């Protein structure tokens, strides 16, 4: 396919414009966090570091961050175990209902968050509350883990399908027991995929708000919930701006790590 010079330039311009559009709102968030005005207007009236100092001392934000990290770590741990097991079953075995299993795993992220959210809410209300388990961090973790499994499943599955089964067979032929084969052959080959899957799962949990809203109960506040609750409060707006800016800046970290890990896990396997 020989593209004319004009076609290449046009494609390049579309891409550049698209990327510019993607980054303008994010830059605005950064600018907004150092804007001297309380309410945001364009152009900003002056620069200040005041809000950053205020945000550092905000107990609400710190508590919410801690809750988000806890929920994310717990959900990621569960998703890593369940997703890896499922990926092994689907990619290393042939069995009846194999496609149904993959379909079932995708369902929690394919269905809208609001449906998953109120389904979990209704189920917790009818089943868990009568036996004394109220809404809290536990119910949030259950909800998050459910849709994080598919992320791990996809990452491990992609790696497994590229990994020749003959390696494991060779290991078995050489006398390794299944556990030894896993420990010395399969696990090292999958380590970066596990890490990337875990990273994506954590990020998904960290950012999730809809399912969280319906599974958290009044006392549990993750960072997105905190942001959402404080959006409407004018005197909290500057602190919310700083937290938002911080999230934009921090978003570079996982991408950088994923890039360093491997070429096929550019944060792309959703």
């Amino acid at each position, binding site marked *: 396919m020989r593209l004319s010079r004009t076609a290449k330039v046009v494609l390049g311009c579309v891409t550049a414009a698209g990327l510019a559009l993607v980054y303008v709102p994010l830059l605005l968030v950064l600018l907004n966090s150092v804007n001297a005005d309380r309410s945001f207007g364009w152009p900003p009236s002056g620069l200040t570091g005041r809000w950053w100092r205020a945000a550092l001392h905000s107990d609400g934000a710190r508590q919410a961050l801690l809750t988000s990290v806890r929920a994310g770590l717990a959900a990621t741990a569960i998703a890593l175990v369940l997703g890896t097991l499922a990926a092994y079953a689907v990619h290393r075995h042939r069995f009846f209902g194999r496609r149904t299993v993959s379909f079932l795993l*995708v369902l929690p992220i394919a269905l809208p968050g609001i*449906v998953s959210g*109120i389904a979990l809410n209704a189920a917790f209300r009818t089943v868990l509350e009568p036996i004394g388990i109220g809404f809290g961090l536990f119910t949030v973790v259950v909800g998050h883990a459910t849709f994080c499994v598919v992320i791990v499943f996809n990452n491990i599955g992609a790696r497994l399908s590229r990994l020749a089964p003959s390696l494991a067979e060779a290991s078995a032929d050489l006398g390794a027991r299944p556990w030894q084969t896993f420990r010395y052959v399969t696990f090292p080959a999958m380590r970066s995929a596990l890490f990337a899957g875990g990273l994506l799962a954590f990020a998904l949990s960290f950012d999730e708000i809809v399912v969280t809203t319906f599974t958290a109960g009044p006392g549990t506040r993750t960072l997105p919930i905190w942001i959402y609750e404080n959006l409407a409060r004018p005197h909290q707006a500057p602190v919310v701006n700083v937290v*938002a800016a911080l*999230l934009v800046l921090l*978003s570079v970290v996982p991408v950088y790590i994923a*890039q360093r890990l491997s070429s096929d896990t*550019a944060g792309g396997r959703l």
Partner: protein
Amino acid sequence: MPAAPASGSRLRLTALLAPPLLWLTLAYLGSLAVLLLSAFWATDSFTSDVVHTWNTDNFHELLTTPVYRTIALRTLSIAAAVTVIDALLALPMAFFMARVAGRRWRRPLLVAVVTPLWAGYLVKAYAWRVMLGEDGVVNAALAPLGLHGPGYGTTAAVIVLGYLWLPYMILPVYAALERLPGRVLEASADLGAGAWRTLRSVVLPAVRPAVLAGSVFTFSLSLGDYLTVQIVGGKTQLLGNVIASQVTLDLPMAAALSAVPVVLIVCYLAAVRRAGALDSL
């Protein structure tokens, strides 16, 4: 990878499958079942308590009230519009990234597309609220041209949803274009096809499953969204908003309403699956 039908292998398979299937059945399918059941219950209009008497009033109301039909159609058209816009933007961008830009540029471009995915849904929706506000950047930029931005409303909702889900469309399309062997494109040119012909007969069929896979995300995420609409949509009401506002007041009605997006998405997944798109999800 043929699995020997030995009993050891079957035991291993059971051990592998049992925990994830048990979790998904108990935590997810179980919850969906409870939701479906509660759609057939009623609500005491005085106390807002759920009354466990079996009836189909909610579905009857859902199908006969014109407002619900309007909202369902509006939601469907917004989800479709967002999907089409994202596909139209993603195709040239992914094509440039995978096929035109030099090898050294591919990685940085991919990173540039992926990074905003991590910046947070709320942060981005909120950024657009600031952009589209009366004193926002959009109005400031359009003022010299004598134009006015869309403000908050349905158009804003489409723009912001399209913005939020764009990477979900670019990534699969990019992956598909990168996998496309260069020889195929050369062969097409050797056989006398011009750029347009090659695009239509070779490139587009090759990326079709990827576009469909991306559309599962853009379509489904738009269909269920209610926060973006709350933040920039003005008075626009979508299915998600109605469901969310009904949950505490009338859970059975909310449950019946959520059957609408579920049915739409299951139909969509089934259609897309036949085109083989779910394999590249």
